[in-house]
């Protein structure tokens, strides 16, 4: 089983080399802990197996780009198109900062076989069943996808991470995710609980202190935990160990704009870090 996980990770990377939509997208702050006055830099990565490439900030793609500290601040005016740093923020207290981003839709088209394989690998059973019903009529996968990542820089006020921001698809932890123990969370789609959706967890060691290892210089890893949301959109994940964590979920449904795509998908992620448990 230990070997199967990297095999699936690698297979996903191979099956979807041209399909950026099938890659995870996450926010990586320069540090997962920050004190008042520190300068935090948030970057974004796209890739598989919690390893990826830097994604420059695109002003025309950003629908939401905010930092929630003592107040919710729009980071868009301070971010520059094409910059490797998505945004910079200086916390004005030690309560923690939640970064949240939502892109607009990006269209993509895949040959039918590749699209079906990608649906299977991502656990998107609903769209897969719909396409299976149509058979050959289902055709190539015409999809448009949007990204909804969040990153939590831990602090004394967990409400900043346990309250929803209002992204289209959003992972909302019930408690401070940086604390040890099983993590209960809600998955919201347009503000409503989303049942029956796979939530996966990925883990990587931190570099020095609370800084993550560069997303492009690390090895790919497989998910270490997963759970499906229940009827109330709630899932509980057992997250063993410390380091940098990424939770991710994807939801796909028929496109609201069938002229441009048959399906639309939403990719949510939440990154945070946990300390070594004291013995």
């Amino acid at each position, binding site marked *: *089983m*230990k*070997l*199967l996980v*990297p*095999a*699936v990770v*690698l*297979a996903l*990377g*191979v099956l979807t*080399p*041209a399909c*950026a939509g099938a890659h995870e997208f996450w926010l990586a702050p320069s540090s997962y802990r920050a004190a008042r006055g520190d300068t935090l830099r948030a970057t974004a990565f796209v890739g598989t197996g919690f390893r990826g*490439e*830097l994604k*420059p900030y*695109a*002003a*025309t*793609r950003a629908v939401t780009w905010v930092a929630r500290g003592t107040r919710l601040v729009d980071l868009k005016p301070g971010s*520059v*198109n*094409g910059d*490797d740093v998505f945004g910079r923020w200086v916390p004005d207290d030690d309560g923690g900062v939640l970064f949240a981003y939502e892109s607009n839709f*990006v*269209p993509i088209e895949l040959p039918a076989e590749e699209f079906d394989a990608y649906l299977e690998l991502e656990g998107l059973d609903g769209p897969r069943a719909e396409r299976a019903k149509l058979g050959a009529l289902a055709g190539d996968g015409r999809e448009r996808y949007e990204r909804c990542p969040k990153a939590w820089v831990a602090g004394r006020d967990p409400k900043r991470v346990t309250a929803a921001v209002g992204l289209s698809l959003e992972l909302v932890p019930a408690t401070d995710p940086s604390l040890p123990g099983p993590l209960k969370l809600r998955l919201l789609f347009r503000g409503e609980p989303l049942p029956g959706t796979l939530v996966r967890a990925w883990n990587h060691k931190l570099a020095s202190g609370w800084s993550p290892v560069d997303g492009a210089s690390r090895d790919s890893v497989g998910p270490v935990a997963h759970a499906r949301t229940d009827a109330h959109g709630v899932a509980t994940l057992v997250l063993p160990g410390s380091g940098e964590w990424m939770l991710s979920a994807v939801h796909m449904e028929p496109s*609201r*704009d*069938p*002229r441009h795509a048959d399906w639309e998908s939403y990719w949510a992620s939440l990154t945070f870090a946990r300390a070594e448990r004291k013995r």
Partner: protein
Amino acid sequence: MRVSPRLASLIAGAASVMVVAAAAHAHSQPYSFVDVELDQGVLHGRVTAHVVDLAHEAALPVPDSLFDAAFTARRLGALERVIDSHLKLGADHRRVRPRFGAFRSVRDKRSIAFDWTSDVHAPAELELDGPLFPYDPPHETYVNVYVDGKLVHEDLLDREHTSASYVVGTRQSIARVVGTFVLQGMHHIFIGPDHILFVVGLLLLGGSLFRLLKIVTAFTLAHTITLVLATLRVVNPPPRVVEPLIALSIIYIGVETLLALRRERDARARIAFGFGLVHGFGFASVLRDFGLPNTALGWALGSFNLGVEAGQACIVLAAAPLLMWLRRHDPAIGRRVVTATSGVIIAAGAYWLVQRL
């Protein structure tokens, strides 16, 4: 699920080989960056291109060799020709031919940046087509326009959005925006049979000039409200709602006309206003697709609406006198024409409704 270690290692091994094979031609950072700067009227800028893309287009076998400044200097002519042929930058609808200056490595982006300048002075409008390297389907070109050091326009070109434009805020350029968007508004009316049929439907029952003016004004007022609200993203209903509603409005006006022939009632001004709100959202979606210049948003919006009005006026001027003449010449034939046309309008609306649901 249990998988034997042997099978798993085989899958992992095969996948690794495929990853390596894919990586040999795949490009993990498919981005380029074009800065266009206008300083005291002088047009210059910088193109930053990934070494993989430069090597591909210049037929160089080892992309990383471009990080060797001496190697790059020896091939500068070929590299500049690559940039020159890919940088489809226009100023006032003329292709800009860049004169290249210094180059430098941008290691963290695995790119080479090329400075350029041009003979273009004080252009009114800048256009850039892209992305820079279309051979690679996921490639994206980040475009930033600076005027006198201030970032005034940001864009991202990819295979879906292939053109960026920036209008420098002069009188001449505003006149160009007005001209472009008036024509776009008229064009949209003339190529959109749904809007034409709705307007014709409103006119079928005829009436005094004042009454027709009241109906058309109600329609204009309503679609102007929603066009502005949607363009400014205050209200943004999805096309899957708007498009079927537009089809429904066409059915409704057809049925209403048939009913009005039998009863003495004329609710057209109210209908025109109500459904005009829906049609405005349709116009807004077209306007968004066309791309609005951030620096002349008001002018573009007003001009597009003016074009829509001009298009509508043409329909009114063509249809209203014809219907009036028919009704006066032979009321019975006039009535039959109104009935038949209403039937056609209902059928067309029903067809679009089914198609758009």
